[in-house]
């Protein structure tokens, strides 16, 4: 049975895992890394880079290097104006006012860019498994709304993956943690502070059942914000010292961003770090160097309010779960930002216990996704997952009020119906406006979609009975239906326009991704050919130097000429020339070795008397074979 892989599509890094022999395994990418930077870059020559290679060139290509794309998934442009200011690439409004990224003269949708990362993760898994992968479980922050989930699902489709389940990140982490504790009754809290989002979930584990009791979070809070605080501080200090505003220099800002991220990480284990960026910028007086010390206490001061912002959602999640702090048995930390000592201290104070140290905060989500994948494929059977919807769902009713049909933290899948009526006399149609959020007024909540139910029998207001049904599947994706009980007329929508991509657009992106896949494959083949050619030239040259005596002197110039041809083709970076010169050298070398071998067999073994070496050298291997046999027969 084909494997269903688990992918943690993170803001900063992504991880892929799979179940093998009943154990979850995190798969290393081609660079040997267990995490892959969620970075996509477009080079000037049209080449597209994903992962570490993209991250490495960010300093020299800041405007075309896209990171933290997860922050823009399923978002309207107006919702992300703050985030857009923090990134060096251009975020623009698309056709439906969705956030898009401009690269050159093209607008890319966030799902399209995320698909490039997913494709990389898919390829990593395929290389490891030695078979093609078609299905995946992809994780999202628990507090992602419907549009963001749908956008993530679309990204999977564009990457050629059927997303079998959209899984909440803290739930995935709990699955990974809980798999080692099956049989115990535990109440756990998962505190997940990732690169761009914060989530907290409270779960109950017992007899292999993982029941999410409540979830909460903030989709605008993560490690990136911590980096940003360090960047702002350094830029301010630098302006005070040197009178130069680094914010105006994209390249300098990219270097500073990397230095800030590094400093933040190092401050988890050190009390003070040096931020040193020579030649960061220049003015009329010459080059400027940046050199500053950042202490842990200063860093904690810079990010204190951000850490404090995680407390509210934790308290809300606890209240929604109906549990008290003292009833929580374990607190599991997820996400790289939970390595920050101050974060751990806040968690310790909040939950009154030491957080679990046994899980790897970078990998635990992907491991959970892989476990869920194995559950869906039937490989694992002792686990049952009951997740919840993070936000309340309802419709707009008279006076712009949001009327909830499904309360937040309701276990999914679920289906709820409620009967509504018309607001005015002789009304023959109603608009169903689906909403997501906790606010009382419709305009304050997230609009998921609208549709009209027409053909209602004319009657006095309040008489028609319109049954509205909300149906949420296990992915947390919603279908809304409305039915006039009198006429039986029915209308429904699957809330999917929210990702900002219509079907035709998704299909186009799927095709684009396939074309790019072909281009990527071609490029990889070219690199392989180049490496092969280089190694062949080296191997042949080495043999000529060490065992040149075995090679017929008249053939040596021919081999050397073929090596030179390979080298010059590599130098000119001409793929066709590299291939043909490699084949040429292979052919000549094969003939030369056949000849050398022939001579060796003729002089080394018991068949010494076999004809002249030169004659043998001119013949193919088959003749040599018969000669040996004949010789044996003679003797």
């Amino acid at each position, binding site marked *: 049975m084909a494997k269903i892989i688990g992918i943690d599509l993170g803001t900063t890094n992504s991880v892929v895992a799979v179940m093998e022999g009943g154990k979850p395994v995190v798969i290393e990418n081609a660079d040997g890394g267990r995490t892959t930077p969620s970075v996509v870059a477009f080079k000037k020559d049209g080449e597209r880079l994903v992962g570490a290679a993209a991250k490495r060139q960010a300093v020299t290509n800041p405007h075309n290097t896209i990171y933290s794309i997860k922050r823009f998934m399923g978002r309207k442009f107006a919702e992300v104006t703050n985030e857009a200011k923090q990134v060096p690439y251009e975020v623009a409004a698309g056709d439906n006012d969705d956030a898009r990224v401009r690269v050159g003269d093209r607008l890319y949708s966030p799902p399209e860019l995320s698909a490039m990362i997913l494709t990389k993760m898919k390829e990593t898994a395929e290389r490891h498994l030695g078979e093609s992968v078609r299905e995946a479980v992809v994780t999202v922050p628990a507090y992602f709304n419907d549009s963001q989930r749908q956008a993530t699902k679309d990204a999977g489709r564009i990457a050629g993956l059927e997303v079998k389940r959209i899984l909440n990140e803290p739930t995935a982490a709990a699955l990974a943690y809980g798999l080692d504790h099956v049989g115990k009754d535990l109440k756990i809290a998962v505190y997940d502070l990732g690169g761009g989002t914060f989530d907290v979930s409270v779960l109950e584990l017992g007899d292999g059942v993982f029941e999410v009791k409540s979830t909460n979070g903030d989709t605008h809070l993560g490690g990136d914000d911590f980096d940003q605080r360090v960047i702002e501080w350094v830029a301010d200090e630098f302006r005070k010292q040197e009178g130069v505003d680094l914010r105006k220099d994209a390249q300098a800002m990219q270097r500073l961003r990397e230095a800030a991220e590094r400093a933040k990480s190092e401050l988890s284990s050190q009390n003070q770090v040096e931020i040193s960026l020579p030649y960061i910028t220049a003015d009329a007086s010459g080059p400027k160097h940046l050199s500053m010390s950042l202490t842990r206490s200063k860093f904690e001061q810079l990010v204190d309010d951000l850490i404090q912002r995680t407390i509210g959602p934790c308290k809300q999640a606890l209240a929604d779960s109906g549990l008290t702090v003292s009833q929580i048995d374990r607190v599991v930390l997820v996400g790289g930002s939970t390595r920050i000592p101050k974060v751990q201290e806040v968690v310790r104070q909040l939950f009154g216990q030491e957080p679990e140290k046994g899980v790897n905060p970078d990998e635990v989500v992907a491991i959970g996704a892989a476990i869920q994948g194995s559950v869906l494929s039937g490989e694992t059977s002792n686990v049952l997952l009951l997740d919840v919807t993070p936000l309340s769902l309802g419709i707009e009713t008279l006076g712009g009020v949001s009327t909830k049909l499904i309360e937040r933290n309701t276990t999914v899948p679920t289906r709820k119906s409620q009967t509504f009526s018309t607001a005015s006399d002789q009304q023959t149609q109603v608009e169903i406006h689906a909403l997501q959020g906790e606010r009382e007024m419709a305009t304050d909540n997230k609009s998921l979609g609208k549709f009209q139910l027409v053909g209602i029998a004319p009657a006095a207001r309040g008489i028609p009975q319109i049954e509205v049904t909300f149906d949420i599947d296990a992915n947390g994706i919603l279908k809304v239906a409305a039915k006039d009980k009198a006429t039986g007329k029915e209308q429904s929508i699957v809330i999917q326009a929210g990702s900002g991509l219509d079907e035709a657009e998704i299909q186009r992106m799927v095709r684009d991704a396939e074309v790019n896949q072909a281009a990527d494959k071609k490029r990889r083949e070219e690199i392989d050919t180049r490496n092969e050619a280089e190694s062949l030239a080296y191997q042949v040259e080495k043999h000529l130097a060490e065992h040149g005596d075995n090679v017929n002197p008249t053939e040596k110039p021919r081999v050397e000429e073929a090596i030179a041809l390979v080298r010059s083709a590599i130098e000119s970076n001409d793929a066709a020339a590299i291939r043909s010169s490699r084949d040429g050298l292979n052919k000549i070398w094969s003939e030369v070795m056949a000849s050398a071998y022939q001579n060796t*067999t003729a002089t080394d*073994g*018991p068949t010494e008397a076999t004809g002249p070496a030169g004659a043998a050298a001119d013949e193919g291997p088959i003749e040599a074979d018969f000669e040996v046999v004949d010789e044996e027969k003679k003797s």
Partner: protein
Amino acid sequence: MTRTPSHDELFKIFVLQQQQWAMVALGKMVHPLTGQNERDLESARFAIDLLGMMVEKTKGNLSTDEDRLITQVLTNLRLNFVEEAAKPPSATESGESAAAAPAEKAGEA
């Protein structure tokens, strides 16, 4: 239930088996029975010549990948043979066994 390998798969298996046999005989790989590196150039030569015969007999009937595989394996084995033959004979190589081996194999052929 087991699956019967296709001819394409069997071809690759054959080439790689021959390569392994030749490499063991060249003393480049540990002998699976003795756990020692034992050089037997005559056996190596026979394995290499068998592959050489295959190249000639299958000419025009192989896919590009198959052709590349067998040609590369053969070139590589010949190169190793030439290098090994230039070294002094090892303790395991006696004149008798060297002479006897090809005779037996020729008989089998």
